[in-house]
């Protein structure tokens, strides 16, 4: 005898299937190739606030790390000549757990060669509107989810492109009683102001794109002529949905940033991860000017259906595993 169906779980499965299908459809319509890169990698993200899971062989030797994002390998594919690629994969980040964080989550990452961050921002707006429509047209879905933000018709959707754009400086000055200049050099205070005062206010009605990040937070983004990082993030209902770059292609500058990250990790007693030398070799060989973006698929679904946590849109969040 089989157990009675669990409508909540079936609902989540149906919704996730709509998201995955419509993401693939969106990129295939735009001549992107779906790619796969390894989850077990020789070097994870080096950002000082990132924690990666180290993997050991059965004999106890280090075998590498679970990818915090597929960024290095996808960029190596650009160096190998790929022009438009996307990937849906699991990414892993240690010690992150909350309503908007799971240690294992689904990442959508895509890159366009011979393109700018602007092109990728446009992709983002159109993609989210496309998936929102697919969800809205998928029938009588929400049993367990609130429907406030659910788009009803094309054009009325809060996700319809284009989205408002603000710079980091404007976002801080309009939501916190402080200027970006006054925060310079004090990372902890900057993040605190951002987390407490600014981010919760971002994208209250409609998504907003935040551009022009301080060069100290450039990560793997190039610098713009104005000295700011060519990095953008989208926010909706105070939740960060994605992080994209006009990609840095200068191998020497990338090595310098990795070394800075390593030094910062050492200074705070965090494990110092190795630099991915093959990634740097491929940058050296030549990577076209590109735009790329990494988007949290669980958060996207959460925001589209108005759920209050990513756990509510996952069949097996850690707490139910």
């Amino acid at each position, binding site marked *: 005898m089989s157990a009675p169906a669990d409508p909540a779980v079936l609902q989540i499965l149906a919704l996730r299937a709509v998201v995955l299908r419509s993401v693939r459809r969106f990129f295939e319509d735009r001549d992107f190739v779906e790619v796969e890169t390894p989850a077990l990698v020789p070097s994870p993200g080096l*950002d000082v*606030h*990132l924690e990666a899971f180290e993997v050991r062989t059965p004999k106890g030797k280090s075998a590498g790390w679970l990818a915090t994002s597929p960024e290095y390998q996808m960029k190596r594919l650009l160096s190998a000549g790929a022009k438009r690629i996307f990937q849906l994969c699991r990414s892993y980040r240690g*010690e*992150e*757990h*909350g*309503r*908007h*964080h799971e240690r294992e989550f689904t990442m959508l990452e895509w890159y366009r060669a011979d393109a700018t961050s602007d092109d990728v921002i446009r992709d983002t707006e159109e993609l989210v509107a496309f998936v929102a429509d697919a969800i809205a047209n998928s029938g009588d879905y929400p049993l367990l989810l609130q429907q406030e933000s659910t788009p009803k018709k094309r054009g009325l959707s809060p996700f319809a492109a284009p989205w408002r754009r603000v710079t980091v400086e404007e976002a801080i000055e309009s939501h916190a009683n402080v200027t970006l200049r006054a925060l310079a050099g004090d*990372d*902890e205070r*900057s*993040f*605190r102001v*951002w*987390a*407490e005062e600014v*981010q919760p206010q971002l994208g209250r009605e409609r998504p907003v794109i935040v551009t022009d990040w301080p060069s100290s*937070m450039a*990560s793997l983004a190039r610098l713009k002529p104005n000295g700011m990082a060519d990095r953008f*993030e989208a926010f909706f209902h105070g939740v*960060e949905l994605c*992080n994209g770059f006009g990609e840095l292609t200068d191998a020497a500058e990338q090595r310098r940033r990795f070394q800075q990250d390593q030094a910062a990790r050492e200074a705070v007693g965090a494990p110092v991860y190795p630099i991915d030398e093959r990634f740097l070799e491929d940058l050296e060989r030549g990577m076209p000017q590109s735009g790329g973006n990494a988007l949290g698929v669980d958060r996207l679904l959460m925001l589209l259906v108005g759920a209050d946590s990513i756990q509510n849109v996952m069949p097996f969040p850690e707490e139910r595993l």
Partner: protein
Amino acid sequence: MADTSDIKKGFKMLIDGVPYAVVGHQFVKPGKGQAFVRTRIKNMMTGAVIDRTFKSGEKLEKADTEERTMQYLYQEGDARVFMDTQSYEQISLSNEQLGENVHYLLDGTEVDIMLFESRPIGVTPPTFVELLVTETEPGFKGDSSGNTTKPATCETGLQVNVPLFVNTGDKLKVDTRTGDYVERVKG
């Protein structure tokens, strides 16, 4: 020593010597940034609710608090005496400490008393109590002044707004969270 990973609803911590209870919390991590736990915490001495953000991993001091069910016994001068229903131990709280809650105490009422470092700091009365009206103006038939309620005084001294049909000697159900009249109790 506790840290931010212990934070959950109801977790009690000491900040500058004052016990706070967590009423809400959220893990936040700005993209590629420092992780924090944003909390909404209640000062257990004053009831004031504040927002406080902790760096993820920050050490926290647990507050030594305990809630015990006690029975109200009697008034003694400016104080009220309660007895632990398990250990029969007696403690007293001043009317000032009790605040509005003095108005919900009848002989034998069971309340929850919060102890901080073994000293009582707060009282939670039952959500609803039944009190006798000792004084209220008679309601007039055909009152056209537009007032639909009138003040009444209860046996414990509580002032409450009641519908016009309530009379002296009636028993009322009162919501202790709001101090509002709920209904007239028969019998």
